[in-house]
């Protein structure tokens, strides 16, 4: 198994990317309502937000953890700055996906090594990276997916 993990590290992301997963990527347009966002999140643990319907240009992401924060009772921190503390589903200030998504993404490209991508995920505390080719999302790398490969299930 150790040998196999090393092998996986040296592979290009392009080589391990699943074609089926590409069709099945969870995406939503950024001006979709919170309700449609939640209906996707009921089944998936994250959604990539794209700029408009039919587009593959990723502009944000909403994860389960983000949602948790938005579903819990809104609580103000001690020091309040900026607009983001006013954004809440409870108080009706968040109505679109755009309002709640994380806009700054850490991404990888199909030509990166899997090892580097994993390192990136560890450094940034992430469990998933969008694979971006040019401007468009072509797939995603998740911790689950890597485990499946390691166990020979993919």
């Amino acid at each position, binding site marked *: 198994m150790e040998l196999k993990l090393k092998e996986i590290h040296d592979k290009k992301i392009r080589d391990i990317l699943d074609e089926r997963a590409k069709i099945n990527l969870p995406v939503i347009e950024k001006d979709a309502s919170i309700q449609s966002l939640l209906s996707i999140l009921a089944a998936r643990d994250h959604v990539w937000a794209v700029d408009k319907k039919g587009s593959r240009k990723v502009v944000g992401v909403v994860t389960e953890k983000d949602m948790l924060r938005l579903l819990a009772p809104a609580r*103000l*921190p001690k*020091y309040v700055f900026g*607009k983001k503390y006013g954004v809440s589903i409870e*108080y009706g200030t968040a109505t679109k996906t755009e309002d709640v998504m994380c806009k700054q993404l850490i991404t990888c490209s199909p030509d990166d090594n899997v090892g580097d991508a994993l390192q990136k995920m560890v450094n940034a505390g992430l469990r998933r990276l969008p694979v971006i080719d040019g401007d468009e999302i072509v797939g995603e790398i998740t911790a689950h997916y890597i485990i499946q490969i390691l166990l020979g299930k993919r």
Partner: protein
Amino acid sequence: MFDLKLLLLELGLALILARLLGYAFDRAKQPAVIGEILAGIILGPFVMGNLFGFDILSPSINSSVEAIAYIGIVLLLFLSGIETGIGELKNSGKKGLITSAFDVGIAFLFGYIVGGMMGYDFIHRIAIGNIFSATSVGITVRTLMEMDALHTNVGNLILTVAVLDDILGIVVLSVTLGKGSVEMLLLKVLIFFAIFIVILYGLYKFQKAKIKANIPRFVLTSALAFCFIFSALAMSLGLAAITGSFFAGLLLSVIPQRRRITEFLHQVGDVFFIPLFFVWVGASFDFSAIHGLGTLILYFIPMALLGKIIGCSIGAKITGFNNRDALAVGVGMMPRMEVALIVATTEMSMGIFAGAMAHQILASTILLVIISSLITPFALKLVYKPPAKESNATNA
């Protein structure tokens, strides 16, 4: 002489008391910051010192806490910048910009007039204007949440203007408090913003670059280092340290690691450095200054509150709000908190206020903070009735 034992004791007592009183105030639906200031007043020379002869946190004995407090300010403004973000500026729109311009302009003017009435010098009048133009809407946001009115036009405008106010207030502060002649100062400010734009451009480019080296926690360390160096740069250009750290924060808000940096800063800042700043402010509160306050306080607090109400109301009225809503925006922008205290202490550290005057201004600002955050919830509920929730019903 540096006394480690005393410093450790001070830090321990200050941190725990600030946390407990902060929590108590939070439970009482008051800003935790006031609790932290109160912790400082209790531990400081004027309560513990006078009652028990237990002299800690006294500025004359130990200046290490002061150093930590100043780092707290720098971190607080850095956080403020990074959480505000350059993106917010683009989304703020015309209404926000107009209201904010009137708000900061008129509040500043009122501060200047108060200085004039007290017979202060030009520089002191401007310094008071700067204290007046700061806003912290934490208490307003809390009240609007209670009234379930955060999603209304009024709530939205208050949130937007609060963001712009911080930025505008800090720009005004940098321009008006710089040292030297007008031409030199303008040149320095231009140099500062030129550096700002070059780094901003560099950061956008840098994101495209592929970096192979993997130094653990490099992003966090370099973010902190960048904040401190940029603040030092601002100071060497004759601007305030907080200007530097606020703009350093704005710069780093464009990089993808923004969230990680904010989380890290919240851990370090909220637990250690920032509460110590408010404790230190409380400990510097000089009760003997109150006797000399008389007329100052008579002008200072009402004018500070009126400046915001009038400025914001005019701005909101111009952008198309009706009278009642415009007044609600004005009242909602009334509270002063962190930023006003930071501006006042920065002005002290720059040597603009000194001696008895410094104590009086700080005491007035602390009283302004407490009074404004006590009356805002009542005043806001009095003047503002949120519209019936029909827009929300369709979304829910």
